């Protein structure tokens, strides 16, 4: 049914185009104003049937970036400039030019799994109601049909349909996480946005959840944008990854390439710091502390912590340039050695 609506010419076009996006937290409390440049000039495209991973350390702006993409901004977050455009076969969506149209597209074409989504279910209602509220009106089914559709969907995701009659607190964290994934996919959207869906789950459950996401994506042929700081997770499911540092995209490329030949020193560090089961050799930690996004370092934002920094890095901001397999923003791109 989905495939039928996608006509030939659009098949090749990317499903999401983000251009020069800037989103800042602008706050003013009793005379103290702060501006946190959490997304600073990001341009990226995401194709159909692709899993795109976004990595980066805590508070580098990963969540903010995908919130902005999902059109889930609330004050004090503001989109300062740039555009986010979706292309869902028949319907084009420019998130910030025509925000009204977003509402109709939500869950139908685009679903979003929030960070901490274990806690996004209404604590005083049964899980069943969440499906009714979010999905029912998009499906055009009778209540009974809808019910069996939901149950079928849950079964396919390895969930017992009886969970529908539970309250969220009666379920374990992993269970709730899987439920939110089920909720986000029951309408079979073309685009799924997921923010740290596996953090805070134990390894076994984490693996299940990853497997689930992969399954769903393959079955629906959807595109997934996926955020986590856990590089091993990216390794397992992402087709391409983008590395974010201090609000900027610093490197992007196919997962294999990024792991094998990181171009940016930060990427290289992320990959090399991972301990490997069975390996007890001492790993270095990145020196210094994360940049302050309301007063970011000049030039390349990574330079205060960069082992390769040169004077140029302090003053000039390296542009994101295309490479053979991806893009990178570093004056000394490719000079790093992987440990």
């Amino acid at each position, binding site marked *: 049914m989905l495939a039928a609506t996608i006509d030939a010419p659009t098949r090749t076009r990317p499903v999401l185009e983000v251009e020069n996006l800037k989103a800042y937290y602008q706050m003013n409390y009793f005379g103290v104003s702060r501006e946190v440049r959490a997304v600073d000039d990001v341009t990226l495209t995401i194709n159909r049937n692709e899993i795109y991973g976004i990595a980066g350390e805590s508070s580098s702006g990963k969540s903010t970036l995908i919130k902005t993409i999902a059109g889930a901004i609330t004050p004090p977050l503001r989109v300062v400039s740039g555009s986010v455009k979706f292309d869902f076969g028949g319907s084009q969506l420019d998130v910030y030019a025509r925000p009204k149209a977003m509402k109709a597209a939500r869950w139908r074409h685009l679903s979003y799994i929030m960070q901490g989504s274990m806690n996004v279910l209404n604590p*005083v209602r049964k899980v069943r109601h969440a499906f009714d509220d979010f999905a029912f009106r998009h499906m055009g089914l009778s209540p009974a049909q809808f019910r069996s559709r939901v149950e079928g969907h849950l079964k396919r995701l390895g969930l017992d349909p009886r969970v529908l009659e539970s309250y969220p607190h009666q379920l374990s964290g992993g269970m709730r996480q899987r439920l939110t994934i089920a909720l986000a996919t029951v309408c079979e959207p073309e685009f799924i946005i997921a923010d740290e869906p596996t953090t805070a789950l134990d390894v076994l459950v984490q693996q299940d959840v990853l497997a689930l996401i992969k399954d769903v994506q393959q079955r629906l042929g959807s595109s997934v944008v996926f955020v986590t700081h856990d590089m091993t997770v990216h390794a397992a499911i992402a087709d391409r990854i983008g590395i974010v540092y201090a609000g900027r995209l610093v490197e992007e490329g196919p997962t294999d390439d990024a792991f094998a030949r990181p171009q940016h020193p930060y990427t290289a560090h992320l990959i090399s710091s991972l301990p490997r089961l069975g390996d007890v050799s001492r790993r270095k930690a990145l020196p210094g502390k994360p940049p302050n996004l309301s007063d970011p370092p000049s030039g390349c934002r990574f330079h205060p912590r960069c082992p390769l920094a040169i004077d140029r890095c302090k003053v000039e901001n390296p542009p994101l340039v295309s490479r053979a397999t991806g893009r990178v923003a570093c004056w000394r791109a490719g000079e790093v050695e992987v440990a």
Partner: protein
Amino acid sequence: MDGFAKYLVRRFFQFILVVFLGVSLTFLITNLSPVDPVEQTVSLMTNFGATDPRSVELMREALAELYGLQGSFLDQYLSFWGRVVRGDFGPSLSSFPTPVMSLIMGALPWTIGLLTLAVVITWILGNLLGALAGYFRSNLMLKLAGATVMALHPVPAYILGLVLLLIFGYAWPVLPISGGAQMNLQPSLTFDYIRSLILHGTLPAMTLVLAGIGGWFISMRSLVSNIVTDDHVVYAELGGVSSSKIFSQYVARNALLPQVTGLALSLGSVFGGAVITEFLFNYPGMGRLLVQGIYRGDYSLVLGVTTMSIIAVAIAVFVIDLIYPLIDPRVRLG
């Protein structure tokens, strides 16, 4: 013993303790009161008559004996508990020898009828308005309604009632301003009687509602403004769930839970009556009974009314603690 039973027993024990302490405290204060019921009756009987001093002394002795006010404090205290346990508060001293219980039973239906209704209406309106105002923060109508409610909040109930009485009793005399029902209409389930009950209850109820709505409004609004930033609400908004649904099922429903406790307490305190409103509109409820009792030094009556009220509130707290898990699925007992 299993956890729940243990909890129940402990909670029940606490309930008994609360009632015991509360009633004992009232007993103590009441007994310290300088109003002497014998003197009150004597002065009532002699105030306008030419009664000679010797007779007055005789009368005083006879009444003291009749009222059974002899005996030490402890004796009276013990016999009081003995009676309470049997659900009997002894004879009223100001309406001797009518049992206090039958006076209370006469007043109780009125109070319960009026106050339960008023409390529930107040609660619903206050919470509804508060929730709407907290959720749709920029709506002009709601802002206006909110400002009105807030401005009414600090106005003493007595003034509100008096103004209503002037408006609907005098300037535009459409409502009865005094009493509980039409005169010469005996209580019955007829249309006339019920209509008259409603008409007579309108002004007192309006007073109670106007005076009480602000409290609920303010607390509900602040609860709601906290809840709207909760993840599950934000998520529902992102999921394109309709505003009305978010409001009712996601915001209001969560915010209402703590308010339920408040409602239970208010319903519990219904037994004490609404002194000022009953006083103003001559409503034949517990508040009026109580004030009469205090004025006439009728300990038995005062103790009866306060004991009822204490027990009712304690039960309300107890019950709400027990049923809370039913209304809030997150709460566990034990």
